[in-house]
């Protein structure tokens, strides 16, 4: 190959790399720096006053937050362990239904369970009011804890099932083979092997609960928490420094959770939700494992109860979306959906459009990130890798407020634009997207890339001819994830979206806040259907690619 051509290839290579590094610095480090800085600077001077005030004025909120988060964590972990063990060891139809429901929760918008809670146990709740004839004030910490536990449990059960699936089935079989019964095998083999996963799930739940402002706002009633305060400080009172300080405070447990995750994941290959789901459905359960005994009974009952609750939840949402109360009578209607089309159609189209943009751009961004960090492995790649993982450490609220603070003035004045929303979603998804690529590229990619190099291909050819085509299933997986996320996220973007440019989830949030439960439910159903359609279409495509091989 000629020398000059080679120079051009090298230049392109460097250019892409520099652009990538700049993007990471601007859209990850800069906002994080901005929010931390804001929490320490008052009137241009460094001070700890903001934190002092925070602790003095909000001690009750801090206590509330810790109380709710701790309780939620305990309940959610217990539920998810039982569900995960059940899903992993059982066979048959109930298991399949349970997995499908777990997958459904992955694509459901937030507040869905809160909405169901209001409809069932609220002031005019179907169970509390209509059946039991009570008019209770059920808004308070009990509701928050139950709903956070319920929605966290699906996610956690997913992660834990993935971890149990990674245990060599022969280990479980050999325990049974050596004469241990199911209960003993679960206690002495499965649970100990799940331990790091359980700890991680617990930490994640804790952080998620701490940073969740939506659930307390919808069903918390007078019970207030720290995250709600952060939200109100931004939206209502414009006290950015206080909001920033609250976010930084939530960052502490988040950072602990992340560190534990890193130590844990160094020893384990981590699966993405999609691969776990596929595995769970594909895998023919081994006939030789026949769980029984009292502990197994308990797990079965527990999982069935969870399943029952989930079915009730979705049923409630579905019914709410197609019914209307009038003079104490319930009748079917399509009015809510008509209302959606009429008034909120734009926001759905906007959501879908954003979903496609984040899907494609996020895929490309994370591909190059993974390529330079994982395949090229240069001296600073560990540092870059750390920067890339930062968005997964910080909670959504944190990143949302950070973006307002970082991009509210020149040279990068992005507040109010669509770009800031899309960029926020993209960079928040970057860690998980990159992980999907890393898993895809690091196993076979390094050697295949070496083979390309060995045959004389310049870097950009290796990217274009080999790595990119090789990782198209990873691209699709990421596309689906990013799309889903755009359709369902609230936490970060609620701060970034301007009134005229609302997204579907935000409309749903407002509808619930305004008491338009039917519209909220209709929005939920529509969001689920859209996400599901995209999911199925893309999975088909991926399947077809796999079969062609």
């Amino acid at each position, binding site marked *: 190959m000629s020398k000059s051509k080679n120079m051009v290839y090298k230049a392109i290579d460097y250019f892409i790399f520099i652009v990538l590094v700049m993007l990471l610095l601007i859209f990850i480090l800069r906002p994080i720096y901005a929010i931390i800085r804001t929490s320490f600077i008052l009137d241009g001077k460094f001070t700890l006053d903001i934190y002092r005030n925070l602790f003095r004025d909000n001690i009750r909120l801090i206590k509330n937050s810790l109380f709710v988060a701790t309780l939620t964590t305990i309940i959610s972990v217990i539920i998810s362990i039982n569900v995960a063990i059940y899903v992993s060891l059982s066979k048959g139809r109930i298991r399949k239904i349970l997995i499908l429901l777990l997958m459904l929760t992955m694509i459901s918008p937030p507040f869905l369970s809160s909405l169901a809670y209001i409809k069932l146990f609220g002031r005019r709740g179907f169970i509390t009011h209509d059946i039991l004839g009570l008019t209770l004030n059920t808004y308070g910490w009990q509701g928050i804890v139950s709903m956070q536990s319920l929605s966290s449990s699906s996610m956690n059960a997913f992660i834990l099932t993935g971890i149990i699936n990674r245990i060599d089935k022969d280990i479980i079989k050999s325990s049974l083979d050596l004469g241990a019964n199911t209960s003993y095998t679960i206690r002495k083999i499965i649970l100990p092997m799940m331990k790091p996963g359980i700890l991680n799930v617990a930490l994640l739940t804790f952080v998620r609960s701490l940073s969740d402002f939506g659930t307390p706002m919808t069903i918390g009633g007078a019970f207030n928490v720290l995250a709600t305060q952060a939200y109100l400080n931004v939206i209502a009172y414009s006290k950015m420094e206080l909001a920033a300080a609250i976010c930084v405070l939530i960052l502490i447990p988040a950072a602990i959770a992340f560190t534990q995750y890193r130590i844990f994941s160094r020893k384990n290959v981590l699966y993405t939700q999609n691969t776990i789901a596929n595995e769970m459905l594909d895998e023919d359960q081994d006939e030789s494992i026949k769980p029984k005994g009292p502990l197994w009974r308990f797990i079965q009952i527990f999982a069935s109860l969870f399943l029952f609750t989930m079915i009730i939840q979705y049923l409630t949402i579905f019914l709410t979306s197609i019914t209307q109360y009038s003079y104490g009578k319930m009748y079917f209607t399509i009015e809510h959906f008509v209302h959606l089309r009429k008034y909120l159609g734009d926001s759905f189209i906007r959501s879908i459009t954003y979903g496609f943009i984040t899907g494609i751009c996020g895929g490309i961004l994370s591909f190059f990130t993974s390529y330079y960090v994982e395949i090229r492995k240069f001296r600073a790649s560990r540092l870059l890798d750390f920067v890339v993982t930062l968005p997964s450490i910080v909670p959504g609220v944190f990143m949302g407020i950070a973006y307002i603070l970082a991009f509210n003035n020149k040279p990068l004045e992005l507040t109010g634009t669509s770009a800031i929303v899309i960029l926020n979603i993209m960079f928040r998804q970057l860690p998980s997207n990159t992980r999907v690529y890393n898993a895809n590229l690091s196993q076979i990619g390094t*050697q*295949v890339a*070496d*083979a390309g*190099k*060995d*045959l004389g291909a310049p870097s950009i050819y290796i990217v274009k*001819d080999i790595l990119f085509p090789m990782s198209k299933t990873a691209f699709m997986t990421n596309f689906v994830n990013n799309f889903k996320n755009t359709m369902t996220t609230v936490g970060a973007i609620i701060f970034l979206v301007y009134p005229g440019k609302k997204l579907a989830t935000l409309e749903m949030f407002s509808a619930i806040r305004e008491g338009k439960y039917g519209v909220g439910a209709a929005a939920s159903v529509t969001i689920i259907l859209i996400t599901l359609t995209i999911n199925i279409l893309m999975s088909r495509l991926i399947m077809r690619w796999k079969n062609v*091989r």
Partner: protein
Amino acid sequence: MFVKLENVTKTFNEVVAVDQLSLEINKGQILCLLGPSGCGKTTTLKSIGGFLRIDGGRIIIDGEDITNMPPEMRPTSTVFQSYALFPHMTVLQNVIYGLKFKGYSRKEAIKKGEEYLEIVGLLPYRNRNVQQLSGGQQQRVALARALVVTPKVLLLDEPLSNLDAKLRVKMREEIKDIQSKLGITMIFVTHDQEEALHIADVIAVMNEGKLEQLGTPREIYCNPKSKFVLDFIGNSNVIEENSGAISFVRPEEIIMDRHEGNICGKIVKKTFSGPYISYVVQTDNNILNVQGQNTGNEEFEMGEYVYLTFKERHIHLKKHSSV
């Protein structure tokens, strides 16, 4: 010398993987890097291919110092242990991939690719997807892909380790045939001594990053220079001499007879293994492994007293030398 390694050293986090390794081979030879896992043989190969940057020393091929060249510029190509075929391309696309960067037109590239597919016997498969091929066929694609760019040195990293026993023997014959047909210089990494003895012109036995011995298969087998090489290659009976030296005799070099011989002993173990029957004979001073041909004529029984004669006895090593 065609390929020359001078004091090549490579460390990983303060662990010395290759330690001051020097060796050289002639054009058209097959060099086998042989040793147990972790001996540095693969690290050496990767250093020659340019996938690892060495910490010290020089690598010279055909008079050109390639120590600091990136892999794409080196006159070497590699057959990877996992084959590293491009999974989304056909057999032919895989094979001709490297020709694009050598300035071949597409037409010329296809012609040349087909020529090499013919050599490895895969021409009828040229439009298949590589993932539809068997292990042995994938191996051949990898070989053709590496050969087609006419490297000065072909590097093979345990290329046969993913194949079953029978195919392994077949493929090593094929590789040797192709080598003699094309006259290409090869460096072949393996931990299988039989494979190395069979395929190599020169064997470099490595241990803990150091070269233990460099020589022809016959030299390595018959005149091991260290206790390590003796232990690593073949089976042997080590006998301590009165002088303090160590001598050894291979099991197949002992003649066993019921009536005459130098040493008397009793058969304490007998193992049937197809073409051979292995005996363990207890003598006054030693326990000796003896290998008898399974000719169907003469067979000895457990507990029998026999006479042994050493056809050859190698006295080489001073006690504790190079151990």
